[in-house]
């Protein structure tokens, strides 16, 4: 079975480390990290990914802008995107989902929750 590639776009090194820790428990996945929206865009357009976990509040380019750019690109339209953010308001959730995010998780996150969502999105792809 082909290995799955997951991109983590998050400005906090601590959160990147934690998410990587959690996702490494999935079998057959490779994890790539990006430190802001622009870095994420560069990586997602130059390589294939089966799932992207994106934070909203980031320097250089925020997560919402990145999601709208991803969904505007024909080759990335089907790539599952999960938002991981501190923004818990209903409007933020609706905004992210309407831009094309498949899932919306709020911090503080539970590793089990991230794993379950990642598994479901990788399977659904």
């Amino acid at each position, binding site marked *: 079975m082909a290995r799955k590639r997951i991109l983590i776009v998050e400005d906090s090194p601590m959160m990147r480390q934690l998410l990587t820790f959690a996702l490494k428990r999935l079998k057959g996945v490779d994890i790539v990290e990006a430190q802001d929206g622009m870095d994420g865009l560069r990586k997602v357009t130059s390589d294939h990914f089966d799932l992207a976990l994106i934070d909203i509040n980031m320097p250089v380019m925020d997560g919402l802008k990145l999601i709208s750019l991803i969904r505007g690109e024909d080759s990335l339209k089907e790539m599952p995107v999960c938002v991981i953010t*501190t923004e*818990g*308001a209903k409007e933020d959730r609706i905004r992210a989902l309407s831009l094309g995010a498949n899932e919306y998780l709020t911090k*503080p996150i539970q590793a089990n929750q991230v794993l379950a969502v990642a598994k479901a999105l990788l399977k659904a792809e």
Partner: protein
Amino acid sequence: MSDEKKVFGRAEEFLTLFNQGAEFTKELLHENERLRHELLSVQDDHRQAATDPGEWGKLRHELLAQIDQLTLEKDNALERLRTVEAENRQFAGRYVEIEEENNNLANLYVSSYQLHSTLALSEVLKIIIEIVINLIGAEIFAVYVQDERSGELEVVASEGMEVETFLKIAPGAGVVGRAVVSGETFCGDTHGTQDWESPIACIPLRVQDRPIGAIAIYSLLEQKDSFTPLDHELFTLLAGHAATAIFAAQLYSQSERKLNTIQGFIDLLTK
């Protein structure tokens, strides 16, 4: 003459074959007769058993004993199944507990790793803020550091409100001052009133018995209702590790300053 011999030879062969066939048929008829007798004998036995109450009783007794044995075996199997199911449930519960513990340990490890990954005070404060936002889920909070000379607690980093909003606190004054003096974490009602005098939680930062400062949490993120057991573990971690990280960064910064001064003197003397 030779043709005649051939015909006789073949006739003899046929006769031998015919005799063998006749012998085989006789054997079959004999066997058939024997089996017919046996069948009759078994039918007789059955008929006798059906009419003889003693035989029936024996058969019934044997069957009842067999039923008892099978019931016992079934009960034992059910009991074992129940035990195995209970063990399975116990293992599943334990697995969930271990998973949770594992996740908590990962959070604590990453927090500790990040806190000690730098000696720059600004970086340490940034990491403390990240831990409090991302792992504890606080919306408004402040990091107080104690001034060595005056002993006053001053906010050096905050989230949700500007640093200037927070007033200096005298040691022992209010919830924050008392937590710093006592060294005990304060955890109150999580539905706070955003009153700067009364945070919903205050974690004193200490290196051994030396107070360094405190982290005061004034409100939690919208999606967070209350503190979890992991939050309390993180409070303990922050109380020790954040304090050590701040203290080490302060010492490093002081030694850097002193080193620069000494270097300046040396440069002045050697020029």
